[in-house]
């Protein structure tokens, strides 16, 4: 069982008998009052979103999901295709189900596919992926402030803020849990 101090973005729990994932989380506490845990939950089967606020003392059942090791193959009109490398069984996940995770998929990447019974309902990515920068403004000579940033687009179409010294063609490491730039990577 989880309790309130375990709640965080990405945690998967059973709510009303169905698996849900916390997509946004905030701790808050009014003045001298009780701690409150504000969650935005996504039903992992229907995709519907709703807000719920919990108070300390409540407990939660972890979602009964199974992780299966699979490989990402390709995208086609049916969605994103993954294959179990032992059984060669293929599963399809829709763009809607994957959400922003779709931006961090690279062909032949190993991922964990989340199964609720026989149904694939999501994936767990590695914490970091390396992606090539396909577009960003050139580095301005003389810009030495280490904290300056600019937008960049990577090969999957994802856009994020990067330090000004990152150039087109650079390989960068992205934290898939936050979607944020982490570091440059030498090829």
């Amino acid at each position, binding site marked *: 069982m989880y309790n309130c101090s375990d709640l965080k973005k990405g945690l998967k729990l059973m709510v009303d008998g169905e698996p849900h994932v916390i997509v946004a989380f*905030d701790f808050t*506490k*009014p003045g*001298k*009052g009780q701690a409150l845990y504000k969650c935005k939950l996504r039903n992992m089967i229907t995709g519907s979103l709703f807000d719920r*606020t919990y108070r300390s003392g409540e407990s939660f059942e972890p979602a009964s999901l199974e992780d299966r090791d699979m490989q990402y193959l390709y995208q086609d009109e049916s969605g994103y295709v993954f294959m179990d490398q032992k059984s060669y069984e293929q599963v399809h996940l829709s763009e809607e189900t994957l959400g922003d995770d779709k931006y961090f998929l690279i062909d032949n990447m190993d991922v964990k596919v989340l199964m609720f019974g026989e149904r694939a309902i999501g994936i767990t990515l590695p914490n970091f992926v390396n992606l090539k920068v396909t577009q960003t403004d050139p580095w301005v000579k003389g810009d030495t402030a*280490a904290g300056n*940033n600019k937008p960049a687009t990577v090969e999957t179409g994802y856009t994020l803020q990067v330090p000004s010294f990152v150039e087109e063609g650079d390989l960068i490491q992205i934290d898939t849990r936050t979607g944020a730039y982490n*570091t*440059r990577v030498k090829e």
Partner: protein
Amino acid sequence: MAEPNWRLAGKRDRLMERARILHRIRAFFMDRDFLEVETPHRVPGNAPEAYIAPVPSGDWFLHTSPELSMKRLLAADYPRLFQICRCWRAAERGNRHLPEFTMLEWYRAQAAYQILMDECEALFCALAPQGRIRRQGRDIDLGPPWERLSVAEAFTRYTDTTARQALAENRFDELIACEIEPRLGWDKPCFLTDYPAELAALARKKPGNPEVAERFELYIAGLELANAFSELTAPEEQRARFAREEAQRLQAGQAPYPVPEKFLAELAHMPPAAGIALGVDRLVMLLTDAATIDEVVAFTPEEL
């Protein structure tokens, strides 16, 4: 590390603004003849409060606020005091909460809480001389007087119940946090005033209406910035209220506190007074239009 810490370097503008704000706060209070004091951060105990958990430090605790020490100074005839210091509260971490944060507290002898409202207005005039701030694309007019809204009126206006009923159903905090707070202080800052007496362990009850305490919180753009009250100066009533809060703390499984006997003994000498605690990190968030508290401090606990 191959690269500089880009996220840390990117905070430069806000950290510079934070330093300027701290300077202006000090100038404001010194101009008004307040004495800046420093009291110990490590103490044998804090004022017991049901929902504030202290961080232990050896056999003692880190302070959750400098309140008790500053009141002992008031009782020893220091009439105007302010302090800017770090405070610690266990397990408080969110977009507007840090377990270690910076508090500004000020106290005035021979005053009630209304004077602190006027003083908040004056402080913001000094911090934002242009008279307005922009938050999340909306302009907030800082020109005094600001809105004064009682807790009772706020429940009538923004919820389907009353403050009394919400308290009885243990929904008071949730309704404040989820329904009321997000709507307060968007046109002008708002003082939410006159809290139910049981939610103000160290505040004086309102003369003529003992159901409520002379306590207010300041909200600007949905952000809770300060908590203030007219101080309770009756030692025996204070002792009884501490005992009630301590019982609640123990019930919630927290470690027991020693009774702050020195504070209670000296409280008898404290003049009528009013005091306020204002969150400096949130103040910087507001003045720099930062979405989260993480953006206005150099390091968050996760980065250490």
